[in-house]
C-alpha cells in the first residue's frame, strides 16, 4: 500500500463512514449478481437435462417390474453371464480404441505442433473435417469401404495384397477402425494444445545441455505433453464406454457394448428398470475410473482448471 492510501485516523475517531464505502461495495455485489445471472440458464439446463433424468434412471434401476423397490435388476446382472460379457467387451473396445488413437494421434499431433501455426491450421482441418459430417454417414462409409466386396478388399485383391476377402467388418476389427476414426479428434485436439505450449527453447536448451534428439524427446517433450495425452485419452475412453452407433453398425451384432445392450433390453423387453441399472453401473464405473486416473496422473489442473 502506498503512503497515499493511509486512512485518515480522524475519520474513525469521529465514527464517520469512509468515503463512498457503501456504494463501492454495492457495485461489487451487483457485479457478482450479474455474473451469476449469466450462469443461470446453464445451471437450469443442467438440472433439467442431467440431474433430473439421471435421478429418475437411478430410481428406476431400483424398481422391479411390479413397481416396488427392489434389487432385482442388479441381481440379474450378477446372475446372467451375458451382462458381465457386455461389460468386458465395452472396456476392451474402449481401451483398444484409446490405444489406437494414441498410436495414431500422438505422431499426428506432434507433426501439427512442429508446423508453423498457419500450416498447422490447414492440416488441422483434415482432423476436424470428420466432426462436420454426420456420425451415421461416416459409419456407413466405413461399411462400404470395409465390407466383403467393399472398396478396400477389392483394391487389395486386385493388386495382390491378399487372395480372399478379409473380414474387416461386422466384428471387433471393423468396430475398432470406425471408432478410432471417430474418436481421433478428441485425442488430437487436447494433445496438440499441450504440445503447442511447449516452448521450442526448451528443446534447444535440452540439446544445448547435451541431450540427443531422442533423449530430449523422452526427457523433456514427452513428459510435458503427457497431461494433454492423458486428458485426451480419458475423453476418448469415456466417450467410447457409452458409444452406440458405430459398434452397432460395424460390429454387426457381434460386438455387444453396454449401449447396445441397453437398446436391446428396451426394444425386446421394454424393461426400463434393467436398462437403467446397466446405465447406473456404467456411470459408477466410469466415475471410479476417472477418480483414480485423476489421482494417479494428478490431472486436477488439466480437467478442472486448477492451478
Amino acid at each position: 500500500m502506498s503512503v497515499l492510501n493511509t486512512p485518515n485516523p480522524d475519520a474513525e475517531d469521529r465514527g464517520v463512514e469512509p468515503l463512498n464505502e457503501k456504494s463501492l461495495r454495492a457495485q461489487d455485489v451487483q457485479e457478482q449478481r450479474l455474473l451469476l445471472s449469466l450462469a443461470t440458464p446453464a445451471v437450469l439446463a443442467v438440472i433439467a437435462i442431467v440431474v433430473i433424468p439421471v435421478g429418475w434412471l437411478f430410481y428406476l434401476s431400483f424398481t422391479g417390474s411390479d413397481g416396488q423397490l427392489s434389487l432385482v435388476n442388479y441381481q440379474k446382472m450378477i446372475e446372467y453371464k451375458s451382462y458381465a460379457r457386455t461389460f468386458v467387451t465395452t472396456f476392451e473396445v474402449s481401451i483398444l480404441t484409446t490405444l489406437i488413437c494414441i498410436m495414431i494421434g500422438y505422431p499426428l499431433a506432434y507433426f501439427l505442433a512442429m508446423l508453423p501455426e498457419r500450416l498447422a491450421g490447414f492440416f488441422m482441418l483434415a482432423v476436424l473435417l470428420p466432426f462436420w459430417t454426420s456420425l451415421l454417414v461416416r459409419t456407413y462409409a466405413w461399411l462400404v469401404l470395409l465390407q466383403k466386396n467393399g472398396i478396400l478388399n477389392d483394391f487389395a485383391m486386385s493388386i495382390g495384397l491378399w487372395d480372399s476377402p478379409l473380414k474387416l467388418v461386422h466384428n471387433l476389427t471393423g468396430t475398432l477402425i470406425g471408432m478410432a476414426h471417430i474418436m481421433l479428434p478428441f485425442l488430437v485436439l487436447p494433445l496438440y494444445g499441450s504440445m503447442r505450449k511447449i516452448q521450442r527453447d526448451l528443446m534447444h536448451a535440452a540439446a544445448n545441455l547435451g541431450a540427443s534428439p531422442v533423449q530430449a524427446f523422452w526427457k523433456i517433450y514427452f513428459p510435458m505433453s503427457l497431461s494433454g495425452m492423458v486428458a485426451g485419452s480419458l475423453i476418448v475412453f469415456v466417450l467410447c464406454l457409452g458409444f452406440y452407433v458405430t459398434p452397432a453398425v460395424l460390429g454387426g451384432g457381434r460386438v455387444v457394448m453396454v449401449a447396445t445392450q441397453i437398446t436391446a433390453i428396451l426394444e425386446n423387453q421394454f424393461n426400463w428398470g434393467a436398462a437403467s441399472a446397466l446405465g447406473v453401473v456404467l456411470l459408477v464405473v466410469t466415475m471410479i475410473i476417472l477418480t483414480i486416473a485423476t489421482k494417479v496422473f494428478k490431472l486436477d489442473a488439466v480437467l478442472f482448471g486448477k492451478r
Partner: protein
Amino acid sequence: MSIQSNNLKTESSTALPIHVQDLTKKYGEMFALDSVNLDVKSGEFLTLLGPSGSGKTTLLMAIAGFNRPDSGSIRFGDEEVILKPPHKRDVGMVFQSYALFPHMTVAENIAFPLKLRGVSAAETAERVATALKTVQLDGLGDRDIEQLSGGQKQRVALARAFVFRPRILLMDEPLSALDKKLREQMQIELKHLHEQLGVTTVYVTHDQREALTMSDRIVVINKGQLTQIGTPNDIYNHPANAFVADFIGESTMLPLTHDGSGSLYFEDNLIKTNYKTSDAKEWSLVIRPERLTVVKDGQYDPEKTIVFSGVIREFIFQGETAFAMMSVNDKYTLSFRFGTDASSWQNALKPGDLISLGLNRSDVIVIPGGREL
C-alpha cells in the same frame, strides 16, 4: 557475488577461443549474417550488440548450433564445429526465456546436463549444491520452477549453463525480462561470475548500457555485418561511424566542412586541424550531451574549448541529470545534460534562454560520413 569455490573455475587451458570465418546466413533475400569474421579470445567476455534484426542472435544461434548457416566456418579452438549438432558442442547457454524445464525441480534442472554426461549421483549432488551456492540460491534446490521469481529463474538458468563446466558460455539477452534494478544488479553479478569461471563468454544484447557495463570487448552489429569491435571505452569514445555513434550512448551529430588543407569546420568554428581528409567525402562531429558545459563569455580558453551559442528549446528534469536541447541558428539542435545538484540546479534554464555551451577540444569525436536517415 563472492567467490564460493574454486572447483567451478574452468582451467584457463580449457577455456576455448572461438573463430568465426566468412559466416553467411540468408533469410530469403536478406543477409542475416553477411560474411562475418570474428575472433573471440580465450576467456574473454565479448558482447554482440545491435538493434533487433541486426543478426546478433543469428550469430549466437549459429555458434550454439541451432541454425544452419549457408556457408562459413566456426571453430572452437582448433576444432571445426560447423557440422556438429548442438548436443555435441559442449557449450553452455542462457536463453532469453530461461528455458527451464517446468516438470523438474530447481536441482533436477541443474543436474540435467550432469546426468546426461554420466556424472555419479554423489558428484552431481555436490556440483548442484556448489552451483546453487554460486548463484546464491542455497537451499532452493527442491523448489518447483513455477515457485521462483524472475530473478531466481535467471540464476537457475545460469547455474544450469555452467554446472557442466563448458568451455564456452553463450547468453542471449538473459536479463531482458528483469526489471531495471534487478537487471543492473545481475549485470555486476554476471561480470563477477565470468571472472570467477574464466570461461569464454559471448553475450547478446540490444542494451548498449548493459554492453558497456559488462564487456571486455563489444562487437557492434548492424544489418548482418560487424560494424566495429573494441573495448567499451573505444566504442564509446571512438565510434567508427554514424551508426555506432548513434547506437551507443546519446549523441548529436553536426556536419563538418573541410577547407582543403586538412582542417574541419562546423559553420565558422575550427573543429580539428591536420585531419586526414582523403578517406571520406563527408565528416561529422559527434558530441556526447554530458561533455557539454554551460560557459560564460570571456571565461573560457578558446584554444581548448569550442563554443556553441543558441536558444534553449526544451528542458527536461530526469532525476540524476537534466536534459536540454539548444537550437543553433534555428538549424541544428544540440542536446546536453548536466547534473541536478543544488549548485547547478540554481542556474536552471528556461526555454527561450540564450546560452553558450563549451566542448573541450579533447572530447572532439570526428567520424566519416553523415547521419544515416
